[in-house]
């Protein structure tokens, strides 16, 4: 196998591009795809200060690395979610990356700063862990961006993430979510601008970026995520991709080009329906209670979770995940 660009030995085959690449030209491809996403969706200005949400995983570290390399001013934000050893390890990867690049990293802890963690929030509210986790992270990203005066929040969502979410939303024909599933959400009503510069890269490509760049990241899956629908959708889409290379890109990027414009009116309507949270002052789309107050979803979750006894991670893992963890611990 030879690199499509330079004819040197390839290190990766990318069937969706019907091409193979060496390490140097894989990086060129990734950079160009990110630049195209930034340009096409008018994500940032060169002088913007970007808050990059980092988890210690491949995607967030890849997007931070690429944006830094492209010359953007970036600060990382790591949120300690309290998911046992998984959280400790992922924090170490985020800290090591920031230290090696000499980049600033803000760390916020759900347990220390808000009095609860993800397993406890999930148990206290009856939500699935990924739902409690996602909501907490979004709230903290927004607040840190607002308080710190950042121009945008950047997340490492990749093409596979977006295609899987699109697949789930389309299965339910959830038009409100479909209308908001864009690589750039402009700032509105107190919410910061949010951008996903990796939407043109698959997660195989972002993982390859990290490997050729020598970036260590947490490879283990979050113990709370085992068996979630998002993973099942990704597996289903990968089956299709293997039969029809380029299917995921065509599905998601085709949605952005041809379907999203038809839903833009609905998206604008949602932007008009925001109130201010009576507890934290954040903008919220929550309904106003009969006493006239509006409390955002994070504050409601936080109030329930803070009063609950801490719940160990293992109590919320599926049986198969617990078995796998025990097997791994035994070596």
């Amino acid at each position, binding site marked *: *196998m030879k690199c499509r660009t330079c004819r040197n030995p*390839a*290190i*990766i*085959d990318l*069937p969706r591009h019907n091409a*193979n690449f060496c*390490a140097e030209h894989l990086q060129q491809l990734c950079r160009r795809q990110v630049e195209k996403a930034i340009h096409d969706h008018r994500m940032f200005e060169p002088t913007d200060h970007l808050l990059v949400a980092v*988890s210690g*995983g*491949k*995607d967030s570290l890849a997007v931070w690395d690429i944006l830094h390399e492209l010359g953007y001013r970036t600060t990382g934000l790591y949120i300690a979610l309290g998911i046992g050893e998984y959280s400790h390890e992922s924090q170490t990867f985020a800290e090591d990356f920031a230290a090696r690049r000499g980049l600033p990293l803000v760390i916020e802890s759900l347990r220390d700063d808000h009095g609860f963690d993800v397993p406890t929030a999930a148990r206290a509210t009856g939500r699935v862990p*990924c739902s409690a*986790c996602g909501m907490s992270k979004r709230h903290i990203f927004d607040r840190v961006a607002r308080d710190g005066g950042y121009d945008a929040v950047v997340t490492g969502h990749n093409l*596979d*993430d977006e295609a899987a979410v699109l697949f789930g939303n389309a299965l339910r024909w959830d038009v409100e979510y479909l209308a908001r599933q864009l690589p750039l959400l402009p700032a509105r009503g107190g919410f910061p601008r949010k951008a996903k510069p990796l939407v043109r890269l*698959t*997660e*195989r490509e*972002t*993982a*390859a970026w990290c*490997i*050729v760049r020598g970036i260590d990241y947490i*490879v*283990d*899956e*979050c113990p709370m*995520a*085992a068996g*979630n629908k*998002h*993973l099942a959708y*990704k*597996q289903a889409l*990968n*089956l299709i*991709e*293997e039969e029809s290379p380029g299917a995921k890109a065509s599905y998601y990027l085709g949605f952005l080009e041809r379907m999203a414009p038809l839903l833009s009116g609905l998206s604008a309507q949602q932007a008009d329906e925001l109130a201010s949270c009576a507890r934290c002052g954040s903008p919220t789309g929550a309904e106003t209670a009969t006493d006239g107050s509006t409390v955002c979803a994070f504050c409601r979750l936080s109030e329930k979770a803070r009063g609950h006894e801490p719940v160990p991670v293992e109590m919320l893992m599926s049986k198969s995940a617990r078995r*796998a*963890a025990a*097997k*791994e611990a035994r070596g």
Partner: protein
Amino acid sequence: MRVLLRNPRREITIDGRRRVHALLNELGLSREAHLVIRNGELVPGDGELNDDDEIEIRPVISGG
């Protein structure tokens, strides 16, 4: 060859030379969802793996 698998972490031994794609097929692993690493470097789909190699098959799907 010694093969390190992840999620959960475990090691298996495979006898005989193989190409990367053949090994993934044999183990029932999606090419779209895995990368193969030897001595810290990626090996492409038609790359030959030798009996004395130590490789890692790294899943790339994350569920967050």
